[in-house]
């Protein structure tokens, strides 16, 4: 055994010596044989030649001997590698184009996969994620979260879960943190005290929250995220014990969460976690004792061996004991508690980004496929030039398998280089892309090189190698034959037909897939334009928006009063300002909480789900809502004046059906309450308050003077070109220096931010489309060049027979047009399928958008033809003399 290893080692390290020995050994044999023949009685004349003939194929014997050494696999692989590198060095342009296009193709796939993996596939970074379940209340077809009292009861009575945690559905964005630096807005999440314990998360430094922190009246404790630690405290260990205030809550930072932990919602990374007990001090209203506010998401960890169905049944019976039936609706029948798997956390981000990311992945896949088709074509064209060489090598005794392997090694070299650059591109480009597309801070993601991505990239690289390398290798090696290389004319000039057909089919496929990608890009981009230009029901252009934090401290209340009075007047008086108004909740902010409203003596029936906006006068005009009937708010709608309200059409229809709403009375709550009645004085055109893709929702506007509420935003309409943001900010800072400013932005910006997913998709798809078009052009250019070279002699003969250069060009271009059209037809069918699949991602465009399709086909054919024209034009000048000389 040892001996064999030593032998193989020697064989490997002393390859050249052994080869020389082999050569010597075989030469000795031939010499002796020739000697024998020469001295024999027959007196063979050319004894050396006869000796060679009776010996057999020399190269093949050598190869077999090397194989017999047992190291030939590695050895010949190294030889192939050297051969491959030499070959690639010889054609640097081809090599560069191949590696660059592979890098983009593979990089795109790695990027898309990495995002998809983290948003959709991967389980939460917690202990034993597969035991986690999400609890949901279901009653009469409706589902909801949990109220605080119900959660506490449930937590103490249940026996099937080893732990139950709750986290608030309302993320508290823009919560001002004071202490340990300048006031700053932080994204805070309220969680039950056992949150970290149930998830199995230990603190990176300090400790996590515990149940003792979550008791009413105890000193507040907070855990911060790694990102926040970095951002605000520069990773100083002294952060532990730092006292900060969050709104009215005084809390001490007790720990920092581990860097990989982001909570139970993938992609949304809070800055601070505080116990639920602090809710009344952090948010404007006390939800802890609210018996009907379902604001908690509840998750639990199943005890080992308890099947989910049994757990669900047990929890449902406990719910009945607690008397939870009153939570949703009294009359909606029995209430059940359902369990869904919580291994991957909450759905939110997955629902929002799952499909766009899947589309991204699919497009990246198509781009890589095109890259592979393109490379395969180029390799075939290259192979045409090598068929002759290979024929000679076959004649010398080379084995066909070896030829195939050699070409595959060359392909592998290309794709490995492409893969390496691709990963680099994914890491750099992916981040740049995410930044370019923008997005809200708390959902932004960064590219990280991890194990999954490495494995995926390796798999993609290997499959790409076979996808573009195998077919050309097989076709070229099959096309090569010794008789061909030593044919009648010494050398056959045209390539084997299989090669030509192969290249043509690849071109058609490439055109087809390209069309699908280009079509997809056109549709997505048109959809984005439609989203931007749609009628929002408000006029967002030229409106500056100041988002204010909801602070509840006495100082903040005082500041709010100032804003409502003096500050807004000063802003109104600024030159260039048309109007200004304050409100609580407005378009496109996620702070609006749904509420119920009921009408007096309505035929339409029950209460309506509505969003309530508290607004000052001028609000309707400032943000550009349109009054259809009646009036908007005026200065006369004072505290003492009769209470009034404005409805949007949608709300009016929900409350009053087809009857006119003007002059009718409504109130908030599940049923009409005449003591809190408001008169409808105006009906507004519908507006999209949720976001560009949101449906119209029912809105009720009430005067802030009559129904006081904190100010969360200031809207300013300016008619001048000049951006007044800076001035607005300085007025605010002068008037209320103690109030931490949220953000000064504009409605157009807010809309763009909301569209970042769509923008990312459109951006990436256009990038892909450009790449694909470039590849198609390069491919067609190469192919026509190859045709022209392949038919050089035929074209020359034709020229000699009197064909004009134009005829020759036409003959080459006709072929290109045919290939392009064939590809377009196949691709057309393909894009119908694709667009049908992505219909839910499109807005305002039908999936069979003829405009996008026609544009895509035209662009593709135009680019294709101009690429084909250059080599065709060159071929038109075929020299008849050269051709005739060769004949």
């Amino acid at each position: 055994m040892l001996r064999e290893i030593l032998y193989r080692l020697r064989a490997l390290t002393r390859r050249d010596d052994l080869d020389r020995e082999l050569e010597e050994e075989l030469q000795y044999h031939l010499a002796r044989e020739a000697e024998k023949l020469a001295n024999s009685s027959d007196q063979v004349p050319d004894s050396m030649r006869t000796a060679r003939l009776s010996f057999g194929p020399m190269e093949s014997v050598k190869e077999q001997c090397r194989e017999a050494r047992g190291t030939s696999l590695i050895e010949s692989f190294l030889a192939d590698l050297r051969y491959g590198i030499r070959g690639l060095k010889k054609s640097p342009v081809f090599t560069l184009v191949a590696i660059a296009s592979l890098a983009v193709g593979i990089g795109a796939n790695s990027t898309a996969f990495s995002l998809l993996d983290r948003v959709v596939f991967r389980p939460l970074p917690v202990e034993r994620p597969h035991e986690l379940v999400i609890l949901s209340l279901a009653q009469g077809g409706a589902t909801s979260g949990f109220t605080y009292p119900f959660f506490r009861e449930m937590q103490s009575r249940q026996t099937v879960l080893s732990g139950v945690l709750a986290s608030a559905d309302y993320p508290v964005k823009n919560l001002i943190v004071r202490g340990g630096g300048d006031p700053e807005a932080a994204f805070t999440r309220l969680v039950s005290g056992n949150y970290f314990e149930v998830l199995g998360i230990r603190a990176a430094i300090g400790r996590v929250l515990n149940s003792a922190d979550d008791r009413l009246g105890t000193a507040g404790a907070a855990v911060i995220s790694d990102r926040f630690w970095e951002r605000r405290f520069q990773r100083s260990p002294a952060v532990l014990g730092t006292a900060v205030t969050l709104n009215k809550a005084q809390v001490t930072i007790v720990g920092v969460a581990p860097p990989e932990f982001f909570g139970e919602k993938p992609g949304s990374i809070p800055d601070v976690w505080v116990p639920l007990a602090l809710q009344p001090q952090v948010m404007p209203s006390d939800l802890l004792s609210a018996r009907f506010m379902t604001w908690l998401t509840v998750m639990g960890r199943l005890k080992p061996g308890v099947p989910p169905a049994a757990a669900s049944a047990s929890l449902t019976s406990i719910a009945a004991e607690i008397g939870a039936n009153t939570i949703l609706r009294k009359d909606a029948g029995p209430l059940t508690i359902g369990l869904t798997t919580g291994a991957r956390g909450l759905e939110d981000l997955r629902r929002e980004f799952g499909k766009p990311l899947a589309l991204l992945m699919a497009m990246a896949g198509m781009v890589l496929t095109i890259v592979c088709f393109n490379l395969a074509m180029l390799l075939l064209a290259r192979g045409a030039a090598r068929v002759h060489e290979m024929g000679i090598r076959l004649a010398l005794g080379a084995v066909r398998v070896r030829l195939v392997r050699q070409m595959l090694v060359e392909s592998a070299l290309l794709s490995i280089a492409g893969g390496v650059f691709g990963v680099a591109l994914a890491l750099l480009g992916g981040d740049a892309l995410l930044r370019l597309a923008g997005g809200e801070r708390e959902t932004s993601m960064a590219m990280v090189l991890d194990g999954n991505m490495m494995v995926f990239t390796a798999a993609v690289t290997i499959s790409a190698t076979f996808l573009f390398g195998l077919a050309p290798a097989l076709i070229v090696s099959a096309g090569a034959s010794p008789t061909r290389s030593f044919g009648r004319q010494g050398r056959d000039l045209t390539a084997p037909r299989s090669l030509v057909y192969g290249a043509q089919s690849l071109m058609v496929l490439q055109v087809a897939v390209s069309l699908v990608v280009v079509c997809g890009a056109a549709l997505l981009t048109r959809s984005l334009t439609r989203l931007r230009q749609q009628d929002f029901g408000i006029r967002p252009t030229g409106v500056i928006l100041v988002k204010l934090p909801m602070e509840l401290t006495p100082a903040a209340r005082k500041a709010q009063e100032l804003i409502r009075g003096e500050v807004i007047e000063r802003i109104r008086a600024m030159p260039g300002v048309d109007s200004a108004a304050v409100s609580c909740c407005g378009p496109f902010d996620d702070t609006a909480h749904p509420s119920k409203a009921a009408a007096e003596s309505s035929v339409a029936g029950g209460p309506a789900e509505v969003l309530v906006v508290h607004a000052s006068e001028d609000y309707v005009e400032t943000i550009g809502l349109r009054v259809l009937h009646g009036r908007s708010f005026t200065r006369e709608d004072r505290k003492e004046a009769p209470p009034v309200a404005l409805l949007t059409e949608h709300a009016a229809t929900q409350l009053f059906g087809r009857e006119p709403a003007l002059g009718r009375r409504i109130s908030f709550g599940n049923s009409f309450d005449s003591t809190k009645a408001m008169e409808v004085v105006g009906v507004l055109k519908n507006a999209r308050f949720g976001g560009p893709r949101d449906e119209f929702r029912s809105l009720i506007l009430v005067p802030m003077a009559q129904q006081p509420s904190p100010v969360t935003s200031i809207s300013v309409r300016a008619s001048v070109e000049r951006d007044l943001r800076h001035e607005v900010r300085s007025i605010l800072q002068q008037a209320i220096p103690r109030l931490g400013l949220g953000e000064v932005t504009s409605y157009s910006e807010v809309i763009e931010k909301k569209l970042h997913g769509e923008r990312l998709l459109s951006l990436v798809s256009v990038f892909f489309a450009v790449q694909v078009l470039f590849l198609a052009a390069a491919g067609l250019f190469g192919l026509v060049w190859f045709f022209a070279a392949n038919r050089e002699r035929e074209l020359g003969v034709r020229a000699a027979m009197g064909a004009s250069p134009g005829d020759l060009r036409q003959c080459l271009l006709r072929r290109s047009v045919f290939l392009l059209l064939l590809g377009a037809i196949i691709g057309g069918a393909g894009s119908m399928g694709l667009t049908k699949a992505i219909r839910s991602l499109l807005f305002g465009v039908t999936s069979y958008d003829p405009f996008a399709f026609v544009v895509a086909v035209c662009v593709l054919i135009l680019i294709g033809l101009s690429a084909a024209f250059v080599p065709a034009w060159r071929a038109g000048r075929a020299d008849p003399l050269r051709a005739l000389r060769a004949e």
Partner: protein
Amino acid sequence: MASERLELPQGTLELLILQTLELEPQHGWGISERLNQRSHGALQVQQGSLYPALHRMERRGLISPDWRVSENGRKAKYYKLTARGRKELRQQSDAWQKLTQAVTLLLTPEVR
């Protein structure tokens, strides 16, 4: 004459090489000549195919190389049997004997 030559059954070439080398160390050409002579030309071993077999056997440690000056004054690669090779030869020729005896027995018409 060529048509009367016999193809070697799979695996017997090694046995023949071992047998040849048992007498004395020999180089490739010498082995080929010896095989030809001893079988009176009935066995046709393509000269080239001898070498891969030799190299395979060298790897398995049945024979070991030995560079010497040959009878015509040139340096040549001689092969000699190793202890393992001897053992292998004994086993293989035993097996071959048994096999041929059995096959011969089966092929002989039974005498009643």
